[in-house]
């Protein structure tokens, strides 16, 4: 089987500490992502879970090539992502889009929603006419549950959940194969978060998307993921099919994480 994404021995270190005025205080190297390998097949949702400082966000950024790894390999449909430059890299980026955590920070407040959603088309398909861009933005907004009046309004006129829908429309307008979703519902209220989770599930089926989900919340991950990888201190300590990780985790830390999730008592049937 061919994978959408293969991550091979990915590694990233940062320099931490040190004092430019004091040679006695030496900087030390800090391993943010330590020899991480996994693969994601088409249509899967691979969730990376971990607590703060586990390296999950650094890993996601390397996969999108927003930061460069120190070593390792990244294959997207068997093409070596790290060797791509210029036009080839741009072409590849169309296939990989991102949904951000904070829908308040990730949308340009001075752009109309129609422009925000159509902007990726303007960048990647400059020959696509303005009228067609607008038409496609309108269709995509409708698909995520916003009517065409949204096109001419500004982000501040929308609620958190609606803004997250706008972010999703922007991510999907280029019809990517892989979508990296970084904490897509953690800034939203419970009732609205559930709307967004369901929308992500529907869109995955409809557009044959592969998801890489980054989250600290095991309950959220349990709803979406087909596969789960658990990160701690830069290392992927365990990964496998969701059922296995959630019901029969083999690593002590995974068991600790699962045990710490505050559970809602089971409802009596009404």
């Amino acid at each position, binding site marked *: 089987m061919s994978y959408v994404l293969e991550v091979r021995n990915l590694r990233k270190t940062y320099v931490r500490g040190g004092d430019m005025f004091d040679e006695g205080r030496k900087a030390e190297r800090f391993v943010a992502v330590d020899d991480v390998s996994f693969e994601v097949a088409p249509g899967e949702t691979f969730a990376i879970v971990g*607590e*703060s400082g586990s390296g999950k966000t650094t890993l996601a950024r390397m996969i999108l090539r927003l930061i460069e790894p120190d070593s390792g390999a990244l294959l997207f449909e068997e093409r070596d992502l790290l060797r791509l430059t210029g036009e080839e890299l741009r072409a590849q980026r169309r296939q990989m889009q991102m949904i951000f955590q904070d829908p308040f920070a990730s949308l340009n407040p001075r752009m109309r929603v129609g422009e925000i959603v159509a902007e990726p088309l303007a960048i990647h398909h400059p020959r696509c006419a303005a009228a067609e861009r607008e038409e496609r933005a309108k269709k995509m907004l409708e698909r995520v549950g916003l009517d065409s009046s949204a096109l001419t309004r500004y982000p501040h006129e929308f*609620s*958190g*959940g609606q803004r997250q829908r706008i972010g999703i429309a922007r991510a999907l307008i280029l019809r990517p194969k892989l979508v990296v979703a970084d904490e897509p519902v953690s800034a939203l*209220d*419970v*009732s*609205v*978060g*559930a*709307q967004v*989770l*369901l929308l992500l599930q529907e869109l995955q089926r409809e557009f044959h998307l592969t998801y890489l989900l980054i989250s*600290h*919340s*095991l*309950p*959220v991950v*349990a*709803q979406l993921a087909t596969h789960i990888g658990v990160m701690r201190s830069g290392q992927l300590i365990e990964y496998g099919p*969701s059922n296995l990780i*959630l019901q029969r985790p083999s690593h002590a830390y995974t068991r*600790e*994480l*699962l045990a*710490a*999730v*505050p*559970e*809602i*008592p*089971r*409802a*009596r049937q*009404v």
Partner: protein
Amino acid sequence: MNALLELEELTVQLPTPAGWVKPVNGISLEIARGEALGLVGESGSGKTMLSLSLMGLLPAGARVSGQAKISSANGNATLLSSLKEDEWRRVRGSEIAMIFQEPMTSLNPVMRIGEQIEEAILAHEPNLRKDLLHRRLLNAMEHASIPEPEVRLQQFPHQLSGGLRQRAMIAMALAPRPKLLIADEPTTALDVTVQQQILALLDRLRRELELSLLFITHDLGVVAQVADRIAVMYAGRIVEWGSAEKVLTSPQHPYTQGLLAASPTLERKALTPIPGVVPQLTHLPPGCAFAPRCGFRRDKCDEGVPEFRGPEPDHGARCILL
């Protein structure tokens, strides 16, 4: 019930360009000594404004009506709802204290942890002897289970982890020995393993110090861990209240049922979102505020705000279907 805090029809009004709104609308509740009440609500429910009204920290121009009363150890009661600013100083911190979601924004970044806790004590007991002050400081840090207190009190907030910062906030809040602690989403910004430790700490303090807890959260899993009783708020009103067990396992109000159905759990389930969004306080529906999003809506829902009705005397909801 030996009530520490009693609210009766407490209402907070705020001026907006579109007229007065009521983020807190006729709230009646009681918290006993040593009891933990979980106040559950989403953004815009009024839960934070309610807690600010109990601390005398409402925005300028706010109007308060109804009654909020806290009893003191000597049997006297203080009427919070009619305190003047200088009288609030006596109550705030020493009777009622509050901890917040993000300790980093509540701690002074350029002041050592020890000094900040001392400052909280001195605000209420300015003439405390130095050796007693130090003992009270260490005592507060011990209550909050801060390891190596003598080292930590010399440190600045940025040198502490998120969990330790929240412990420092708890030490600061408890140092003047309040009877009621308001905790506004105190674990939302923390990792799940650290959250577990903080919840266990609050539970222990409640038992050891007979501290009453008003725990504000949107997370039904968290509230299940800490609360004896739960009040669910929606658009400024309590729509359901009862023991934590009853509210969570046999919810009566369609909003509570909706929240439970929309909450992800470790077991994969078909999540059922609540359609629509929370109404604007400037455009509240005429009757039940949840009616526009409710699957059981009927004409009668718009005829006025439903009174509390319950399956049992200690469990009730504002819904005409009951």
